[in-house]
């Protein structure tokens, strides 16, 4: 791959960052209103995390792995048409590194993803009056002894692997953590021909009972859940509640898993261990972490959501506290793909309106009303889900002295404990300085949730500060220093005016 560095500049009416459910809906809505749209996404193909798929050339029926695939094909068709007429430019395989307010609008720097770039690696600077930010989320993790062994993966990573490869990344799996997503990942493993030894759910699920109403508002979710449960029952997969994977064993890779019962506070009940032998795949997932770094970079208002995530604050039009910056999808609270699509449409419409493209009429009003109802129902469902599936407060009870917390810098649990106890590293930033936790390649994306807990941040305001400190990264997308050094050298002349 040759490296040609140049800086290009682009202008448009609306930039949409992320081509997942939210971003695709936003781009189709904004371009439909007449705005010139630039859609930027890291991946080569649209779809985001939810509709991640292999190219049609390689998988004739990608829909078999998906829910809501019809919605995807409709959105993809609209997008294709808009690309054909020049209304939308799709900058795939590119990540947005920085976002800032400029005097006249919002500015971004964008770079080709090195892994996908054939040749050109230069930076692109983009300016627009309106940006719809739909960056989605990644799996939230809690450390556990043995979680660095090969064969242990993020549950979402297992799902992503199956959706693109049509095969499971292991033969016999245990899925563990919390949330209905574990069921969907387990179902995919079975569908891909793998075996599931158990699904371990840390919650006891009685948390759903007072929220039956919220669940009833979203019948499609109930149906989807029932489908998974019946598939798992058919394959005799144990669904172990109030249970967590508390150790993973193996020499060069995962081979065996210990699970334990948890008490009401999510702490391990001694003497309840059970073992699953012959397990070569462990999928761990504790909900999702919205990718909030660009929100923080833009200086938009944030808050801590009910699941503990740092999210962007928006009004009813999905507008953030920064003029021209709209947010949609998981970045406004983890609520699933249907909510993301509804929010994307609302945000795309509002962003186009702001850029001067105004559509009125009874049909538009009715559609907007439907989206608002969908958004409200799915948000209510999400609140119920998060309440029923909290992070277990007692998770530190399964940690051992030597358990790795920060995978990149290989920081063991005892070093963090010493640091928080003796060096008063009472917040994640302090932990970084004293232990290098969160300073490695992933910039604290994987250990961030644990670091926030371990730094003993208490109170919502302190939690928000801690979460903002973790999400405060100079670059939104992980980037190799060598690429950056080269690009930097090239940007300077153009940055002048």
């Amino acid at each position, binding site marked *: *791959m040759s490296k040609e560095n140049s800086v290009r500049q682009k202008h448009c009416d609306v930039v949409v960052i992320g081509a997942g459910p939210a971003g695709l809906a936003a781009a189709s809505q904004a371009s439909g209103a007449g705005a010139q749209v630039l859609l930027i996404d*890291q991946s*080569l193909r649209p779809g985001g*995390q939810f509709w991640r798929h*292999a*190219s049609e*050339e*390689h*998988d004739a029926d990608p829909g078999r792995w998906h829910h809501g695939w019809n919605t995807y094909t409709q959105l993809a068709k609209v997008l294709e048409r808009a690309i054909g007429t020049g209304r939308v430019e799709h900058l795939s395989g590119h990540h947005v590194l920085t976002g800032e307010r400029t005097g006249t609008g919002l500015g971004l720097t964008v770079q080709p*993803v*090195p*892994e*996908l770039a054939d040749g050109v690696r230069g930076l692109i600077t983009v300016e627009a009056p309106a940006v719809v930010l739909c960056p989605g989320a*990644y*799996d939230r993790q809690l450390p556990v002894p043995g979680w*660095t*062994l*090969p*064969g*242990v*993966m*993020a549950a*979402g*990573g*297992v799902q*992503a*692997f199956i959706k*693109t*490869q*049509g*095969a499971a*990344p292991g033969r016999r799996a245990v899925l563990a953590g919390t949330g209905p997503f574990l069921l969907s990942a387990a179902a995919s493993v079975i569908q891909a021909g793998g075996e599931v030894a158990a699904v371990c759910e840390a919650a006891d699920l009685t948390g759903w009972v007072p929220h039956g109403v919220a669940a009833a508002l979203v019948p499609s979710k109930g149906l989807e859940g029932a489908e998974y449960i019946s598939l798992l029952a058919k394959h005799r997969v144990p669904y172990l509640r109030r249970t967590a994977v508390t150790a993973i064993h193996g020499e*060069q*890779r995962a081979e065996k898993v210990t699970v334990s019962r948890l008490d009401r506070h999510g702490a391990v009940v001694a003497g309840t261990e059970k073992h699953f032998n012959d397990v*070569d795949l462990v999928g761990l997932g504790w909900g999702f972490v919205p990718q909030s770094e660009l929100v923080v970079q833009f200086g938009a208002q944030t808050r801590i959501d009910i699941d503990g995530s740092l999210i962007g604050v928006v009004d009813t039009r999905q507008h953030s506290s920064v003029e021209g910056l709209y947010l949609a999808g998981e970045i406004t609270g983890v609520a699933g793909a249907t909510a993301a699509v509804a929010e994307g449409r609302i945000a795309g419409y509002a962003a186009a309106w702001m850029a001067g493209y105004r559509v009125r009429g009874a049909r538009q009003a009715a559609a907007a009303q439907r989206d608002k109802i969908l958004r409200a129902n799915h948000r209510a469902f999400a609140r119920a889900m998060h309440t029923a599936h909290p992070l277990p407060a007692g998770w530190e009870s399964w940690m051992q002295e030597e358990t790795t917390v920060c*995978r*990149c810098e*290989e920081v063991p649990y005892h070093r963090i404990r010493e640091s928080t106890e003796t060096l008063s590293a009472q917040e994640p930033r302090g932990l970084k300085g004293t232990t290098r936790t969160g300073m*490695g*390649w*992933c910039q604290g*994306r*994987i250990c961030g949730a644990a670091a926030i807990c371990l730094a003993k941040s208490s109170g919502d305001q302190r939690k928000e500060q801690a979460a903002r400190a973790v999400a405060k990264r100079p670059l939104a997308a*992980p980037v*190799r220093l060598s690429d950056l050094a080269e690009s930097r050298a090239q940007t300077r002349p153009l940055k002048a005016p």
Partner: protein
Amino acid sequence: MSETITLSVDGEEITIEPKRTVAAALMLAAERPAWRRTRFNNEPRGLFCGIGVCFDCLVTVNGEASLRACLIPAEDGMVIETSERGTR
């Protein structure tokens, strides 16, 4: 388009379906759950997040080091080098 493509992994040729990522090729065809060693503890690492976030899956492709194997679509003739060479 041919039904399979060929990659070289640490000097050995593997034949795979064209839809594979480099990570999936290593796991499914080369049967390598790990292809990197950590700096301090020399631990084996392979795929973790699967979506380009964790950087556990770094690999050298066509001479370029430190690329995320989970993001790279495999291409015929690619030369993959891992830091797990011979330590399987």
